[in-house]
């Protein structure tokens, strides 16, 4: 530091010239500078860790955002429609189907019921009993035909 010193001080009062400048220094506790150096170097070295931490943090954020997007897409693709519910239902094993029926029947919505009815036409589960001859005689065939669907008529031979 001596190269920075300018010893050519302008005229000073004698008492300032004669003073021992060392004696004017403020005292410091023992070990003060050593402890301070350790503390400073420790803090300076800690500063570099966040640089790596920042990189890791950036990638963590990127991966998290990507995961959220993927999950959102997956959830979006699994829309909760009656059709999908029915497909899932059909894929169940007999045992699972029975468990489902026992436990979740009450959860069926009216949409679920209607969807099932559409998939399983009521005709398949209904026995249409043919009319007797007397009944036929008493019934105006024309009138009866008006009340029957064409599909039903196809399956019967009306006894004359």
């Amino acid at each position, binding site marked *: 530091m001596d190269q920075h010193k300018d010893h050519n001080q302008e005229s000073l009062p004698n008492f300032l010239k004669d003073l021992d400048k060392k004696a004017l220094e403020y005292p*410091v506790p023992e070990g003060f500078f050593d402890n*301070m*150096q350790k503390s400073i170097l420790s803090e300076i070295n800690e500063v570099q860790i966040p640089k790596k931490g920042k990189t890791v943090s950036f990638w963590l954020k990127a991966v998290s955002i990507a995961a959220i997007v993927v999950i959102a897409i997956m959830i979006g693709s699994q829309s909760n429609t009656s059709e999908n519910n029915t497909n899932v239902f059909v894929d169940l094993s007999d045992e699972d189907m029975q468990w489902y029926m026992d436990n979740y029947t009450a959860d069926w919505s009216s949409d679920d019921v209607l969807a099932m009815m559409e998939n399983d036409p009521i005709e398949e589960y209904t026995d249409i009993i043919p009319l007797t001859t007397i009944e036929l005689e008493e019934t105006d065939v024309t009138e009866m035909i008006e009340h029957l669907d064409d599909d039903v008529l196809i399956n019967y031979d009306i006894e004359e």
Partner: protein
Amino acid sequence: MIQNDAERDKGFKLLMDKYQSSMYQHIRRIVVHHDEAADVLQNVWIKILRAISSFKGESSLYTWMYRICTNESLTHLRKQNRRRTQSIEDSDDGLRKQVAETEIDSHLIEEKLKKAILLLPQKQKLVFSLRYFEEMNYADMSEVLGTSVGGLKASYHHAVKKIEAYIKEHN
């Protein structure tokens, strides 16, 4: 050495070994109390060591460090006195009043000089400290304090006259 990661800590330590004592004294003359001077000095070194790799060398490292040192000390004083005062000159008045009321136990000339310096206005105190204790030339002081050489010479002259008057009065 500081640019090399493996040698960096060693370089920092050498730098601190060389300047820490004189910088502490400079800060202590401004903020007065040891604990505050220790806090300021630690902040100063952290700022210096963090920024040293980007130091452009437009001024000498020595004046650059003393500029940081002086600014941090004045900023600390300003923060300490923000609630009570409006400017650094006002806070300096408060500090001087506090020092003036302190009795000097010792009759040694050194103790009287310390008190006389503390009673100087802030700018004169800085100029006197850098010139008398650090023996800094006016060109470097101009870089540290951002004041013209003529202004610094005038401040130093006034500081010496005030100290002389104080010593004569209390002898």
